C-alpha cells in the first residue's frame, strides 16, 4: 500500500460523494454522500500523516501525529453535525411532508 494508492482511493471516494451530494434529490441520500466526502478527506489526512510527516518531523513524534489528530477531530465534529443536520431534516419533513431537496427552495423568495 503506497501513499499514491491511498490518495487515489480517497479521490475516488470524494468524487462519488460529490456526485451523490449534487445529484440525489433525497435529503437523506445527500447527507450520506456528504459523509462519504468527509471520510475521503479523513483518509487523505491519515495517509499523509502516516507517510509524509514522520520523514519531516522524525525528532518530534507527537507533532508528527497531526494528521491523525485532525481525522479524530473531524469524526467528532461530523457526529455533531449529523445530529444537527438530521434535526433540520426532521423539521423540513414536518413542514412540507417531503424530503425532496428540489422542493426545499423557500429561501429563494
Amino acid at each position: 500500500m503506497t501513499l499514491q494508492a491511498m490518495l487515489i482511493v480517497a479521490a475516488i471516494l470524494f468524487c462519488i460523494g460529490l456526485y451523490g451530494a449534487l445529484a440525489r434529490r433525497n435529503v437523506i441520500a445527500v447527507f450520506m454522500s456528504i459523509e462519504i466526502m468527509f471520510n475521503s478527506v479523513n483518509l487523505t489526512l491519515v495517509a499523509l500523516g502516516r507517510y509524509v510527516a514522520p520523514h519531516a518531523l522524525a525528532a518530534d513524534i507527537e507533532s508528527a501525529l497531526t494528521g491523525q489528530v485532525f481525522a479524530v477531530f473531524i469524526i467528532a465534529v461530523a457526529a455533531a453535525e449529523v445530529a444537527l443536520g438530521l434535526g433540520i431534516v426532521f423539521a423540513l419533513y414536518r413542514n412540507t411532508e417531503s424530503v425532496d431537496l428540489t422542493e426545499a427552495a423557500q429561501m429563494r423568495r
Partner: protein
Amino acid sequence: MISESFIWAILLLPLASFVVIALVIRPFLDRASALSGRVLIGCLTVALALSLWTLAATAGGAVPDFQPHPWLDVGQATVALGLLVDPITAIMLVVVTGVSLMVQIYSQGYMRGDPSYSRYFAYMSLFTGAMIGLVLSSNIVQLYVFWELVGVASYLLIGFWHHRPAAAAAAKKAFIITRIGDVGFLLAILYLFSQADRFAAAGLDPFHIPDIWQAAQPLATGGAVLGGAALTWVLLGIFAGAAGKSGQFPLHAWLPDAMEGPTPVSALIHAATMVAAGVFLVARFYPLFLASPNAMTVVALIGAFTAFMAATMGLVMNDIKRVLAYSTISQLGYMMAALGVGAYGPAIFHLFTHAFFKALLFLGAGSVNHAAGTFNMRYMGGLRRFMPWTYALTLIGGLSLVGIFPLSGFWSKDEILAAAWQGGGSVEMWVSRLTLGLLLAGVLLTAFYTWRLLHLTFHGEFRGGGEREQSDLAASAPPAAAEVPQHHGAAPAGNHPSGVHLAESPWVMVLPMAALGVAAVAAGFVANPQWVQRLVIFPAHWLTDFLDAGLEHGLGAAAEAVHPIVPKFSLEVALASTAAALVGIGVAMLLYRSRASEAIRDPLERMGPVHRLLSQRYYVDALYEGILVRRVFYRAVAGALDWVDRFLVDGLVNLVGCSVRGVGRGAALFQNGQVQWYGVMIAIGSLLILAGYLVLG
C-alpha cells in the same frame, strides 16, 4: 483730499438701497411700497452730493491713488478690488447719479399704481449701483463683474412687464445680443490672464487697469508687453463688448426693442447711462487704443457708419420711443467715431451732454404717453396746447439733440466734428474725412427726424390717441404684415391703459424734466470755445482739458509720444453743421406743414422701396431673427444637437441600461433556489480555479 471710504459710499448706497427694498420692503412692507422709491431717492441724493464733491476735488487737482484690496488668488495672478478715480470717472459719477436721481423722482409719478412698484425700484437700485461700480472699477475683472450686473439689471427692467410677450422677447433679445459682444470682452480679459507672466516680468498686474495702460507703452528695453497684432485683437475684443452695450452697427438690433421697458428705464438705461458704458469702456482703455491705429480705424468707421445708418432708420419710425432709440444709437455712434478719430475729450463731452438731453427727451415721451395713452405718433398731434411744459422741455431736448446754437448738443457735437475736421489722430486722414462726412450727413438726418417727432407729437390737431389706435387696430385686424413690427412696440404700456386724458403730467414728472432741461441748456458751457477765457468758473475748453489731463496722467511717461486731439472751435465746421441742421428742420417743416389734422399717411411713404427698406430696418432684424435664429440656430444647429441628443446621448444611456438589465437577467438564471445547483456551480468554479492554477502556475 478725497477719502476712499466716501467713494465706496457712492457705490454702496444704491446697493444698500437694493438690499433694503428687495429684502425688507418688498416681502414685509408691501403696503408701504411708496417707501421704496423714497429710500432710493434718499440714497441717490447723498450719492450725487458725494459725486459732485469728488468731481470738485478731482477738478481741483487731487489725484487719488487708492491701493487695491486683494480679493482672489488665481494661480500666479491676484484679482484685486479697487477704486480708480480719474476725471472721466468723476464725470461719469455725476452723470449716473444725477440722471438716475431725476429719473427716480419722475418714476414716482410715472409708475404710480403699478402692482410691482417696489420691484421696479429694487431693479433700479441694482442698476444704479452696478453702473457706479462699473465706472469706479480699477480692475478689469471687477469691471467685467459690474458690466454683467448692468446687463442683468437691463434685462430685468426691459422685461419688467414680463406678462407682455413683446417685453419678454425684447429682454431676451437684448441680453443675448449684448452677450455676443461680451464674448469678445471676455476673450480679451482671458488673453491678459494668459500673459500674466510677461506682465509680472515687467512688474505689472495684468488685471489692474493703470498697469494695462502701461503695458501697451514701449518699455525702456524696447517693445511693449502688449503690442502689435495681439494688442489690436485685445482691443477689438474690448470694442466688441463696447459695441454690444452701446448698440454699434452689427449689434444694434436690441436697443430699439428695449423700448418695451417702462419709459423711465429707457431714459436712464437705454439712453443716458448704460448704453454709454460702451463708450466709457473704450475711453477707459484709451491709452491702449492710442497705441493701435488699426483698432482706432475700426472704432471710427463703425461709429460713423452707425451714426449715419441709425439716423436713416429713425426717419421712418412711428413709435416715438423708437425714433429716440435710433437717435440714441446714432449719437453713440458719434461718440465712438470721436474716440476713433482721436478726440477723447469731445467724445466724453458728448456723452455728458447727451445723457441730459436724451434722458429729457425720453421723459418727455413718457409724459406724452401719460396723456395720449399711446407711443404711436400717428395718433398724437396737437399736444402742445394741453401740455405746455412738456412741449417746451421736449423742444429744448430736441433742439439740443439737433445741435442748435446755444444748447449743449451744439457744443459737444461741434467739438466732435471739429476734431474729425482737424484730423491728426492716429488714424489716417481719409478715415477722419469719411467720418466727418458721415457725421455731417447724420446731423441733417437728426434734424429731420427730430423735427418730424416734435411736429407729429405736438403740432397740428389731436388725432385720437390710444383709443383711436385701439379701434383702428381692431378694425384692420388682421393687420397688414408690414405693419406688425411697428405695432408691437406701440402697444400701450402695461400700467397705462390706452385711456386718453389730455392734461399736463403731475409736477413730480415735470420737475425732474425741468431740472434735466436746465442741464441740457447749461451742460454745453463746461467746455467753451478758445476765445471765451472764463465763463463763471469754467475756463476755455475746461472739460476736454480736464479729461485730457486725466488721460495724460494715466499714460505717465509715455504721454509725450501720443496725444489725443484737442479740437479748437472752428467757425467753418460750426456753420456747416448748423446749416445741415437747419436744412433738415426746413425739409421736415415743408413736408409736414400742410398735413395739419387728419392725414395719417406719412409723406415719406412716397419714397416707396426706400421707405420700406428703412421701416424694415434694412432687414437686419429679419436677417438675425429669420435667418440666423430660425434657420441656422433652430433648424441647423438645434436640429443637429437634437439628433445627437436623441441618438447618441440617449442611445448611449439606453445601451448602458439595456446591457445592465441583460446581465442581470442572465445572472438571475443562476439564482434558482436549488442548493444542489449552487453546489454544482461551486464545484465547477473550484475546478476552474484548480485548472487555472495548474495551467498558469
